[in-house]
């Protein structure tokens, strides 16, 4: 297992500087540059539970470029959120533990940093925008206080300079009348405005990477649209890389440049957003995209994925998706752990007979079966 993933990592490094920039939104060009700002290699996060070890993140490799939005898509239990928390080293330990891999940001491996150094990275170089703005904000502190806290810690500003920076951050997220809003408390703001405040805290220290963990699921559609547009504008202005964690392919279609689809703790497919929508190779990706009803046309009966997402403490030994796959394959085909291979330029897929219909076309790429 280890060998196949490692070779995949190396191949991926070689290729990571050659992706074309793609415009994925209707409001301006994409700000993707070639500079890789965050490089995650073979990340493994395990949880010890009374049912056994849960491999929530099981050898995940990806990178984010300056100004790029990487979408990490998956269902609950796919490991998409734990992946993000692991980058920030916020996985509760025990029961969680990052058992392997590297997270390279600005030339340093974050997993090697001391807790003290990590504090300045969190909210500084990497910041996170969480799902529920009501839980992310403390109800007893004013907006000024909460936006200012991050700025004080990371930039050491005081007095007038601090106030200016707070107002500036609020202005960047298009909060009207930022001077008076700064004096308000969270309950005085609407849901959309609160989520903007969380965004202001996120961008206040000019981060290199923002992790957005389903930031719009609790918002109404029109407020969601305004917020997504805002994120995109901030990205263009600041050139920040965004990791967008979501289960919604609509958000992927609108926001992301590149997509990694996760299933049972592993990436099963990764490619630029158009390839994912136009030529998905993995059965899971195909099924996920086609099982969503379309607004644009009246569709016939939706194709559905049978079965349930797997329980992570009880994963099948090889291809985790095999029990839900509709392809014909033998038990041996499914028993081998499929390697993540680059089958076409910049298009990675977890190749196995049990989940890739075009397996025969790429079978020659499979590494020899000498390990396990």
């Amino acid at each position, binding site marked *: 297992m280890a060998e196949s993933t490692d070779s995949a990592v190396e191949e991926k490094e070689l290729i990571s500087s050659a992706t074309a920039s*793609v*415009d*994925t*939104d*209707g*409001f301006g060009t994409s700000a993707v540059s070639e500079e890789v700002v965050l490089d995650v290699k073979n990340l493994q996060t395990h949880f010890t539970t009374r049912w056994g070890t849960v491999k929530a993140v099981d050898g995940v490799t990806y990178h984010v470029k300056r100004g790029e939005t990487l979408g990490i898509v998956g*269902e*609950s239990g796919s490991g998409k959120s734990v992946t993000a928390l692991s980058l920030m080293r916020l996985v509760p330990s025990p029961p969680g533990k990052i058992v392997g891999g590297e997270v390279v940001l600005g030339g340093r491996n974050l997993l090697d940093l001391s807790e003290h150094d990590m504090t300045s990275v969190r909210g500084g170089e990497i910041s996170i925008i969480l799902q529920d703005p009501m839980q992310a904000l403390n109800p007893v502190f004013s907006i000024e206080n909460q936006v200012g806290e991050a700025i004080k810690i990371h930039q050491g500003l005081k007095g007038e300079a601090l106030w200016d920076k707070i107002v500036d951050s609020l202005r960047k997220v298009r909060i009207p009348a930022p001077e008076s809003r700064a004096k308000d408390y969270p309950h005085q703001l*609407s849901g*959309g405005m609160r989520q903007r405040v969380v965004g202001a805290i996120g961008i206040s220290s000019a981060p290199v990477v923002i992790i957005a963990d389903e930031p719009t699921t609790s918002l*109404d*559609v*029109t*407020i*969601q*649209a*305004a917020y997504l*547009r805002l994120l995109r504008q901030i990205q263009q202005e600041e050139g920040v890389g965004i990791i967008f964690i979501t*289960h*919604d*392919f*609509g*958000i*992927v*279609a*609108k926001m*992301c440049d590149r997509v990694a689809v996760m299933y049972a703790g592993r990436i099963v497919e990764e490619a630029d*957003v*158009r390839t994912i*929508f136009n030529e998905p190779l993995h059965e899971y990706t195909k*099924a*996920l995209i086609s*099982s*969503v*009803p*379309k*607004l*644009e*046309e*009246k*569709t016939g*009966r*939706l*194709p*559905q*994925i*049978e079965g*349930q*997402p797997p329980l992570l403490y009880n994963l099948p030994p090889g291809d985790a998706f095999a029990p839900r796959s509709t392809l014909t394959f033998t038990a041996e085909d499914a028993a081998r752990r499929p390697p993540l291979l680059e089958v076409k330029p910049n298009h990675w897929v977890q190749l196995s007979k049990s989940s890739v219909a075009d397996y025969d076309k790429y079978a020659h790429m499979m590494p020899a079966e000498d390990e396990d």
Partner: protein
Amino acid sequence: MTTAASTSIPGAPGVNPSADAIISIRNLRKWYQVGGGFMGFGDKIYLKAVDDVSFDIERNKTFGLVGESGCGKTTTLKLLLGLETPTSGHIYYEGEDVTTMSKAGRTEFRRSVQAVFQDPWSSLNPRMRVRSIVGEPLEIATTMTKGQIATRVGDLLSETGLNPYQANLYPHEFSGGQRQRIGIARALALNPKVIALDEPVSALDVSIRAQIMNLLVDLQEEHGLAYLLVAHNLATVRYMCHDMAVMYLGVVQESGETEAIFNNPMHIYTNALVSAALPSHPDIHREEFLLPGEVVSPINPPPGDVFMTRTPMEVDPNHKWANERPPLVEKEPGHWVVETPWSMAADAGLKVTLTGHKGV
């Protein structure tokens, strides 16, 4: 369908219930008093959650209610289920007014209208086994013996895609999708004619949503069920619903056949909702337009058109519809919209094309 629409009048106030409808809602209001009127003095302040809503749910069809949070769609559903008492207005079931029905008639109505709720994690009692959860309505409302109930529960579970032997398990032993199936089995227990679905798939995983939506469609065909679907996801509504209404601030702004509305959304608010909905492909760029301001409070809304504070157009404060509630007007067969000088997308020069413009 078009002929049916001409007899069933979704928005016209005061019109008698139509024969095609299993449920007819007429001029339904739910106002909550939130202040004022101390000991009979002073002006009372009302939160108008639902204000003069009328629509028909036809037999064997699905009616969708869409709108943003606070628009009154869930209150309307609760009024139908009898979980809230209307301030005024009528709910007709099979042409009979539920509010003036005899006790026996009301019991029959309650059995015939069931509900499936949004969150399968909190809507099932964690201390009850599945057989008690699904069998409870049968115990209360029928004279079936324990043996008959057990058989019926087994049948209901297999019909909703579960195994009869799972009847002895507790809710926590199931995944979200399976729990929603338990909720559906329970709703089906008394052979209802109407099921109110309150965001039935939004709490579920993406790969499970299609399973549950297809199950609901299959059950509708098999049992001739009518659904009232409350949802905020427009794509779900287009997939599931035959007819729909768009609500804003307690008032229906546009209603009619689902396809008629999606093919030609007329109200500015409907266009704003459609333009803000997420695309199904990265090459679809819909032009977004955001309404000025935010959703205003439903406490003491404007006496006239409730939408007038959000329109991008000029509002003449002396116009009739700025001071009096405008009615729904049938602009094309089976397609009703609140028409004021500032509510029509065509007048504002706004027109959302669903497919947007393709390509980069």
